[in-house]
C-alpha cells in the first residue's frame, strides 16, 4: 500500500471528526431530549415509588430487567467479532472491530444502569459494595445478583480497555493533526504514543492477551445473567440450558445489532468503501449460524418442558405457545428464525439490505425472547391462586425508549471523536486486495508517482 492510499484512508476516516452538519446536531439534540426524558422519568419514579411501573405481585420483574438482559445481550457483539476474529486473525474483521467494541461498551453502560433503575431504593445501591466496618455487614456473595454486579463491572472494565487499547495509535494520529485543546485532549488519550516498534509490540501483545481474556469474561457474564433466572425455582426458569442458551442468544442479538449499526454508519458516514457487502455477507453467515443455534436451544428447551409435562411448568408453556403471550412467541420465532433462515441462506438475498432486514427481525425477536423469559414465568407460578399479569407503566416505556436513544446518542458522539474504523489496523491489513475500491485507488496512485515498499507503515 502506498502513502497516498494511506493518506486517503486517513483523510476519509478522520472526516467525521472534523466538524458536524446541522442535521447531525439536530439528531444529537433530539436524542439528548429523549435520554433526558428517561432520566426525568427515573427521577419521578424515585420520588413517587416504583409503583409508577406496571410491576405487581406476582410479576415483580418487568421491562427494566427485560431491557437489562437485552442490552447485556447486545453487548456481546464486540466480544465475538473482535476478540474471536482477532485471535483467529480473520482479515476481514479490520473495518468491523471498533464498531463492534463500541457497541459492547455502550450496551454495557446502558444495561448496567437498568438494574439500578429497577431497584426499589436505588440510593442505597452501595449496599452491594463490599466494605468493612464495625457493623459486620457484607453483601451476600451467594446471590446471583452479586455475581452480576461483579461480572458486569469486570466486563465493562475489560471491554472498555479492549476498546481503548487499539484506539491509542488512532488517537495519536488525530493528535498529530490537531491543535489547541483538541491536541491536548487527544495527546492525553494517546498516552504518549510515538509508534515505536517497542510500543507496537506492547500493544500487539496486550491486545492479544485481552482478546483471549475477554472471551471467558463475556461468556461468564451472560451465563451469570442467565443464572439470575435459572437459580430461582420459577417455572421454566429453573433450567440447566439457560447458561449456553443466553450466551448464544446474546451473541446472536449482538451480531444483529452490529449489522444494523454498520449499515447505518456505512450510509450516514459514507463508508461504503470500507464496510463492504463482503462484510455483511460474512456477518450474515454468522447470523444465520447463530439463528440456527438459537432455534436449536429453543427447541431443546421447549421440547423437554413439554415432554416433561410438569404441572407447574405447563401453564407457562401454554401461555406462551397458545395463550395470552402466544403472539409475542410467534413473532419471536418469525423474527429470530424464519426471517434470517429465509433471507440469509441464499447468496442472492444475503445482501446488505437482506442482512439488515434479518437483523431488525432478530433484534425485535430477541427483545421478545427476553420478555417471554421474564414475564410469563412470573405470571404463572406454582400456586394458581397467585397468578397474575403485567402491563408496563409509563416510566418503563419512557426509560426503554430512552435506552435505545442513549445507544444512538453514545454512538453519534463516539463517531465524532474517534475514527469508527481503526485506521492503523486497516492500513496494516494485508488483505486490502479484497477491497476493489482500494485496489483501484492504489492503481491510480501508482500511475501518479513512486510507491514505497508495502508493509512499511509499522
Amino acid at each position, binding site marked *: 500500500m502506498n502513502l497516498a492510499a494511506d493518506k486517503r484512508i486517513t483523510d476519509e476516516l478522520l472526516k467525521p471528526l472534523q466538524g458536524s452538519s446541522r442535521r447531525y446536531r439536530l439528531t444529537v439534540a433530539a436524542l439528548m431530549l429523549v435520554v433526558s426524558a428517561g432520566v426525568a422519568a427515573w427521577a419521578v419514579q424515585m420520588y413517587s415509588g416504583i*409503583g409508577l411501573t406496571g410491576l405487581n405481585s406476582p410479576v*415483580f420483574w418487568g421491562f427494566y430487567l427485560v431491557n437489562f438482559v437485552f442490552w447485556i445481550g447486545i453487548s456481546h457483539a464486540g466480544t465475538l467479532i473482535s476478540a474471536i476474529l482477532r485471535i483467529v486473525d480473520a482479515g476481514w474483521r479490520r473495518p468491523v472491530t471498533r464498531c463492534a467494541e463500541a457497541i459492547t461498551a455502550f450496551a454495557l453502560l446502558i444495561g448496567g444502569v437498568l438494574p439500578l433503575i429497577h431497584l426499589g431504593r436505588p440510593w442505597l445501591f452501595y449496599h452491594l459494595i463490599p466494605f468493612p466496618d464495625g457493623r459486620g455487614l457484607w453483601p*451476600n456473595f451467594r446471590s446471583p*445478583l452479586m455475581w452480576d454486579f461483579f461480572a458486569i463491572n469486570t466486563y465493562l472494565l475489560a471491554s472498555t480497555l479492549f476498546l481503548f487499547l487499539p484506539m491509542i495509535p488512532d488517537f495519536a494520529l488525530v493528535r498529530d493533526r490537531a491543535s489547541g485543546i483538541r491536541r491536548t485532549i487527544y495527546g492525553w488519550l494517546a498516552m504518549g504514543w510515538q509508534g515505536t516498534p517497542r510500543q507496537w509490540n506492547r500493544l500487539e501483545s496486550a491486545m492479544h492477551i485481552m482478546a483471549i481474556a475477554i472471551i471467558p469474561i463475556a461468556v461468564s457474564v451472560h451465563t451469570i445473567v442467565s443464572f439470575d433466572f435459572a437459580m430461582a425455582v*420459577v417455572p421454566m426458569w429453573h433450567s440447566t440450558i439457560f447458561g449456553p442458551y443466553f450466551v448464544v442468544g446474546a451473541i446472536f442479538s449482538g451480531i444483529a445489532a452490529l449489522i444494523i449499526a454498520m449499515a447505518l454508519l456505512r450510509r450516514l458516514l459514507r463508508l461504503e468503501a470500507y464496510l463492504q457487502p463482503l462484510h455483511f455477507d460474512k456477518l450474515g453467515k454468522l447470523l444465520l449460524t447463530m439463528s440456527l443455534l438459537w432455534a436449536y436451544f429453543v427447541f431443546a428447551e421447549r421440547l423437554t418442558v413439554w415432554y416433561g409435562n410438569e404441572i407447574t411448568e405447563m401453564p407457562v408453556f401454554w401461555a406462551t405457545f397458545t395463550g395470552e403471550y402466544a403472539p409475542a412467541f410467534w413473532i419471536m420465532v418469525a423474527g429470530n428464525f424464519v426471517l434470517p433462515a429465509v433471507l440469509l441462506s441464499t447468496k442472492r438475498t444475503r445482501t446488505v439490505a437482506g442482512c439488515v432486514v434479518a437483523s431488525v427481525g432478530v433484534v425485535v425477536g430477541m427483545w421478545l425472547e427476553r420478555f417471554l423469559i421474564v414475564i410469563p414465568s412470573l405470571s404463572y407460578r406454582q400456586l394458581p391462586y397467585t397468578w397474575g399479569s403485567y402491563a408496563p407503566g409509563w416510566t418503563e416505556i419512557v426509560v426503554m425508549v430512552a435506552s435505545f436513544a442513549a445507544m444512538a446518542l453514545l454512538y453519534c458522539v463516539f463517531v465524532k471523536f474517534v475514527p469508527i474504523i481503526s485506521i492503523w489496523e486497516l492500513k496494516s491489513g494485508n488483505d486490502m486486495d479484497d477491497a476493489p475500491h482500494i485496489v483501484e485507488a492504489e492503481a491510480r496512485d501508482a500511475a501518479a508517482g513512486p510507491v514505497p515498499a508495502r508493509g512499511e507503515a509499522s
Partner: protein
Amino acid sequence: MPRWGMAVDLDRCTGCEACVTACHAENNIPTVGPEEAARGRAMHWIRVERYWEGEFPDVRLTFRPVFCQQCDNAPCEPVCPTYASYHTDEGLNAQVYNRCIGTRYCANACSYNVRFFNFHNPEWDRPLDLQLNPDVSVREVGVMEKCTFCIQRINAARIDARAETEEGRIEDGTLQPACAQSCTANALVFGDLDDADSRVSRLSRSPRGSKLLEELGAEPSVTYLQKGDWDESGGG
C-alpha cells in the same frame, strides 16, 4: 434455642379470615386502596387461598391459609444480594428493612408468593394512623416485607421469660402470633418445633400432615393437616 413453626389444620379452618385482619392490625400492614389493589399490589401477609373442584351440584371449595412458610432451606435467602433476607438462629426467614434495596429477587424466588413489596409509601388517612402498633416498623417505599411470625411478640416474650426465669424458656401456648390468636376455629397452632411436647410439634408429626409444595425442597416450618373424612363409625 427454639425453632418456631406453625401447624395449620385444614379440617378446622373455616376461611373466616379473622387472621387476615388480625395480621393487618398487628403488623401495620397498609391498605393500598382500590386502584392499587386492582394493579395487584394488595398486601396480605396471610391470605386464604380458595380452590374449586367439580361442577354444580357436585362442587367443592377448599380453603388454605398461606403465609410465609419460614422455610429451613428458604429460596428467598441466598438470592438477596444484601442479606436483607436471611435466616435467624430460631429458624425464621427474617427481612431486615434497613438492608433492603428493593431488588425484589426474593419475591421471585419464593414459590409461595408470600412476600409483599411497598410500591409506594404506605398512607393512613388521619387519624387511622393512631392505631399503628408502635412495636412494629412502618415500612417505606421500595422495601420488601412479609410475615414475621410476629417477631415483636417473640422478642417481647423472650425478654419477659428471661426476666422471670433463669433459663428464659418461653412456655408453650404463652406466645401466639396475631393470626393464631384470633383464629376462630383454632386451626392455627404456633410454637417451638424443637420442643417434642409442644402442641405444634405434636401436630406436625401427625399422619395428616404435609408441607405445601413439599417437592420443591424448601423445608417449610409450616405443616398443613389435611381435611379429614367422615365415616359413620364415628372416626375421622
